[in-house]
């Protein structure tokens, strides 16, 4: 009988831990980042239901992200043990300084007794203020060496000037840099001297932007044979 009681206790304990839950209002927070904004914070409010919950870890899957569980304990350390009915928030501070476009980064939350971690994702939309269209010019090997144009457009509320430009293969890819509207719109016109041979080059632009990631940008030019390998259809 004692044996039966002990076994029953084990199963009751297991059942209690399984019924505990950390319920999040959302597991995805989307933030539109302002051009001059470096840090943004995603917040994931939660409530503990059922039994208690214990946080084993809350690791950011990127050095650009830092997680924090709030409220903190009186000694300012993270509160890892939560009772039923308690509410809190996991905050994810995102350093967006290296990113452009849409980026997803997650905090991986591991709870005691849970096999699968919970991913709390911060999605940021970071505007590209210096847009090159296209950023790569390509000529097929042996084709006519026609002039092609890269348009440079500033999409900021303030002007960003191109203060210098240079190329690493101007002999094959001479270019003309034209200012259409200072601080807002430019053109790079490229006409290769020869398309009989494969080749490549880079045109680097420097700007007067105060934001580090917009201080430099690069356009690419290339002459190459058409791909002989047919892309397979097996890819999804």
């Amino acid at each position, binding site marked *: 009988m004692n044996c039966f009681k002990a076994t029953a206790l084990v199963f009751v304990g297991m059942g209690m831990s399984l019924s505990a839950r950390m319920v999040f209002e959302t597991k995805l927070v989307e933030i539109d980042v302002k051009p001059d904004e470096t840090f943004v914070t995603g917040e994931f409010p939660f409530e503990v239901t059922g039994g208690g919950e214990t946080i084993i870890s809350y690791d950011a899957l990127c050095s650009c992200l830092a997680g924090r569980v709030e409220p903190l304990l009186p000694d300012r350390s993270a509160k890892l043990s939560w009772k039923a009915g308690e509410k809190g928030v996991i905050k994810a501070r995102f350093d967006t300084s290296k990113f452009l476009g849409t980026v997803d980064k997650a905090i991986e939350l591991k709870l005691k007794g849970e096999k699968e971690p919970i991913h709390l994702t911060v999605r940021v939309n970071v505007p590209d203020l210096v847009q090159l269209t296209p950023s790569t010019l390509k000529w097929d090997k042996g084709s006519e060496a026609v002039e092609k144009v890269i348009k440079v457009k500033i999409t900021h509320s303030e002007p960003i000037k191109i203060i210098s430009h240079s190329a690493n293969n101007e002999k094959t890819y001479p270019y003309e840099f034209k200012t259409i509207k200072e601080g807002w719109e430019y053109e790079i016109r490229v006409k290769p001297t020869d398309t009989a041979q494969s080749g*490549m080059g880079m045109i680097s632009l420097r700007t007067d932007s105060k934001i580090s990631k917009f201080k430099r940008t690069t356009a690419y030019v290339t002459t*190459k044979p058409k791909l002989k390998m047919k*892309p397979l259809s097996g890819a999804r």
Partner: protein
Amino acid sequence: MKGFVIALFSLVILSGLAGLVTWRIVGAPDRSIPCDPENLPADHVCLSTIREWPEEGILWVDARPRAEWEKNGVQGSVLVNDVEEWFELEPEFMMQMMGHPRPKVVVYCNQEGCGSSKYVANQLRERHAMALGFEVHVLQGGIKALLAEKIN
């Protein structure tokens, strides 16, 4: 209580024996990262699918931090991550693609959820895929899938 301990001990021994018998009959466990081609996020691809593609038609892009790429990156891979400045790393990728055009680019990072491979893949796709005519894929399971393949 003694009875319970004996019962528990017997259970552990029996489970262990059953495991050993299974090992002898079925063989070592499959440590490959599970990947169902029918249920993948957009632009993700299973390693088994990649292995059906001509190897010379693939450029591998490592989206992990530099130290990890140097430690066990795929042979011939290019480092393009979101830790270092984009404009410092992009030229090497472009030189590789323009010097030796390949129809497929496969990006991998550390683990599911790291987000780096997805970000790098999106950037390469938006900036250069159309002009240079390549497809960009994210390896499901990242480096873990590649390492598990070696173990198996």
